[in-house]
């Protein structure tokens, strides 16, 4: 296998540099009500790592002082952080586009139902992962009963206007393969999801993002145990597309972990590779000028972002043919 950095050199794109910071992504904790088989964060209900109120306010201050277009909140299940509610209300007052990546099924639980109101009231954009529009396949990856609870919440969100044209309330879905293969093109999968979701579930959403499973965390364990690891790496490398490099998400994102440490992306968080720009890699020392031209810490896992039409938290990176 050719190393990723070598591959970038071959197409004259090494070293990889950030272009700007447009997306401020916060991972507010590793606790989750689920334990999905593909989870790269390896989140569980037992995790105690949750972003503190102090780190939330340090982030809020940075957001206020800078003009990032988007605040993107992820986890774990972000709702399980007790400070999320207050933070969202504060951010919403500043009119910043705010995304919460929710597994949705947590909103079935009584103590978390309030977030449906909070999201609606504050115009929070919701991104929710649904590996497949068919019950059996999704439940195989996410656990029995997941699909039905997910659809129940989508119905509630649809009633509030989420996923409906013209309401201004956005519900986007994420597809990731249920196994050791790459996702197909976004338009093809989006139309299949839309067809099945509306005809079979009477459920509606705005857009579908396709995300490649990264060979890290629990998905790496699966690849290893199922004997798919070597072939998966090979598939990723063979599918390397230089056209994705320009828009790699690390080039316009900064990713904060629950302790306030700074990373190029959520994956580098999992791999414990903090930003490498010679300045304190923590929100307490946030320095936009150096961060927005920083050197990205690339590695072989980056092949997960450059395969095919590319992959990021916002889906594909390169235009389809």
């Amino acid at each position, binding site marked *: 296998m050719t190393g990723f950095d070598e591959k970038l050199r071959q197409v004259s794109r090494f070293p990889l540099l950030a272009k700007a910071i447009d997306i401020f992504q916060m991972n507010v904790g590793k606790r989750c009500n689920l334990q999905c088989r593909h989870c790269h964060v390896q989140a569980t209900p037992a995790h105690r790592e949750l972003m503190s109120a102090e780190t939330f306010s340090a982030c809020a201050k940075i957001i206020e002082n800078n003009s990032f277009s988007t605040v993107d909140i992820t986890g774990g299940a972000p709702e399980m952080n007790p400070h999320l509610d207050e933070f969202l209300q504060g951010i919403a007052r500043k009119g910043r586009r705010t995304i919460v990546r929710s597994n949705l099924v947590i909103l079935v639980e009584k103590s978390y139902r309030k977030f449906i109101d909070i999201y609606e009231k504050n115009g929070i954009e919701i991104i929710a992962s649904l590996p*497949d*529009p*068919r019950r059996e*396949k999704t439940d195989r990856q996410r656990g029995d009963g997941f699909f039905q609870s997910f659809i129940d919440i989508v119905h509630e969100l649809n009633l509030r206007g989420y996923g409906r044209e013209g309401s201004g309330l956005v519900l986007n879905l994420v*597809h990731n*393969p249920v*196994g050791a*293969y*790459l*996702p*197909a*093109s976004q338009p*093809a*999968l989006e*139309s*299949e*999801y839309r067809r099945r979701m509306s005809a079979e579930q009477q459920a509606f959403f705005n857009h579908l993002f396709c995300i490649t499973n990264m060979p890290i965390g629990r998905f790496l364990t699966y690849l290893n145990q199922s004997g798919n690891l070597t*072939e998966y790496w090979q*598939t990723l490398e*063979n599918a390397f597309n230089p056209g994705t490099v320009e828009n790699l998400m690390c080039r316009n994102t900064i990713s904060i972990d629950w302790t306030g440490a700074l990373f190029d992306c959520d994956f580098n968080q999992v791999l414990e590779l903090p930003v490498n720009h010679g300045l304190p890699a923590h929100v307490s020392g946030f320095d936009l000028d150096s961060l927005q031209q920083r050197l990205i810490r690339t590695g072989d896992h980056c092949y997960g972002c450059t395969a095919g039409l590319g992959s990021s938290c916002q889906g594909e990176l390169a235009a389809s*043919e």
Partner: protein
Amino acid sequence: MADYYEKKDLVDFPLIVEDAKEAGEKFFAYYSQATSAGLLSEREKTLIALAVAATQHCPYCIDAYTNKCLSLGISRQEMMEAVHTGAAMQAGVTLAHATQMRKICTQKEM
């Protein structure tokens, strides 16, 4: 020759262009257009390609198109239906040739 039909052979496929550039490039342009969405969707074309791959016994294409079906969210039951369509077509094509046999017999037998 060490082994026939190795998975890694497929990586060499795009490189056939090296030995007959113009024909190779024209073939790949045609291949890409014919297998991409047109009036038929990408799903429909991929299922057709899978059925053809199975009927033509091409291990490379079976691998490539099974993976593409998975990527497109096509279930294994749907894939199996497509392969049955191919199998039924092959059986039908064979049996339809029995009409030639019957025609000759009818003409030749007293």
